């Protein structure tokens, strides 16, 4: 077992990244009812067949079906879907050029991660309601996926969250007015909103700077650490494992041939799986209450 893991860690970056992309496609079940069965079948086939990940037809079909999803649901707001289609296309191009595959996925992985985080940071800076904290106030009070986290760290109760949701619903296109507060008057909640707003922006800007920094520079050498820090902190709270796994697959494509970094990325894949399957904030809320 140890020897098998050791051998796997020394495989080509294209093989490792392709494997992790295929596993994340199986775990995440992307696409709509037309494309999902095909994406699942092709991914499973690629993993089951010997050297299936090297087959250009596999990556061509995955590029087609992941792109089909974007085109069929155009204009799609889910940025993960665009990145997945682009990454499948990169793997297809790499599979067509086996001699340059490692370079193709390495360079593209690094630049695309950098651009994704740069554009996400610019979008936050330009947004009308991000920097003033409105976005996270709204998110923490209306998105049920974050309610355990909000209760745990924002010193608000589930009742206060549901009351805020009720009040917001009553305001929709009506002359409704009340003197009740929608936003709970909790210092911890406001602190949570402020920290989330600035951490999210600074963390993503840092990843962008590290991945787009000149090769060999100090920031460039810290890029894997910055991406891992982003994934560990973000996916503990945001339940969007598919994007995390895709970033790990891309990270593995561009990292140096360094066993420790590869182990760290692979561990991160399973940490995100753990976050996704084990609802740690729910367990903590139940434990405390």
């Amino acid at each position: 077992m140890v020897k098998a893991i050791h051998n796997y860690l020394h495989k080509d970056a294209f093989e490792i990244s392709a494997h992790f992309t295929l596993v994340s496609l199986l775990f995440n079940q992307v696409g709509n009812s037309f494309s999902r069965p095909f994406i699942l079948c092709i991914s499973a086939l690629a993993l089951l067949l010997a050297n299936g990940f090297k087959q250009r037809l596999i990556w061509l079909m995955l590029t087609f079906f992941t792109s089909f999803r974007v085109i069929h649901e155009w204009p799609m707001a889910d940025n993960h879907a665009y990145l997945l289609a682009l990454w499948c296309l990169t793997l297809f191009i790499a599979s067509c050029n086996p001699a340059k595959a490692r370079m193709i996925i390495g360079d593209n992985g690094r630049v695309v991660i950098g651009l994704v985080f740069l554009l996400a940071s610019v979008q936050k800076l330009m947004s009308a309601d991000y920097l003033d904290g409105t976005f996270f106030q709204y998110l923490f009070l209306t998105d049920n996926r974050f309610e355990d986290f909000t209760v745990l760290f924002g010193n608000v109760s589930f009742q206060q969250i549901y009351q805020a949701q009720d009040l917001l619903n009553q305001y929709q296109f009506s002359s409704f007015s009340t003197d009740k507060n929608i936003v709970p008057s909790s210092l911890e909640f406001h602190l949570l909103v402020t920290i989330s707003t600035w951490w999210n922006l600074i963390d993503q800007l840092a990843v962008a700077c590290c991945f787009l920094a000149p090769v060999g520079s100090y920031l460039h050498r810290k890029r894997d650490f910055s991406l891992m820090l982003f994934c560990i902190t973000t996916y503990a709270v945001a339940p969007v494992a598919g994007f995390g796994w895709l970033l790990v697959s891309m990270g593995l494509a561009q990292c140096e041939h360094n066993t420790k970094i590869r182990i760290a990325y692979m561990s991160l894949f399973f940490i995100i799986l753990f976050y996704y399957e084990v609802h740690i904030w729910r367990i903590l809320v139940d434990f405390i209450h």
Partner: protein
Amino acid sequence: MFSTTDYGPSRYIMVYGLEDNIIKEQIEIPESFSNVARKLRSLPNINNLQELALEMENYLRLSQYGFPHFRIEVWSTRYHKKTLIPSFYLLNKLDHKLVR
């Protein structure tokens, strides 16, 4: 990645029956038009307004609808930064004549 409250679910499509350019009643959008409505909420341009208008026209003609025109409006929601009290802003609208 997370950056704004202005996304699909915070946008609303309102359809009204018109007579002499006066709003007479609100018309519900049938569930079967959810895909066209989703597109319009994401990208409220004139093409997507016209696409929903044509779907609505067919639907209203079949249901023997009484008013000669209808209006489609797309609204966005902005939340007050301290109180989160929502206010609504018109993004785009289209008046459409019902051809019988």
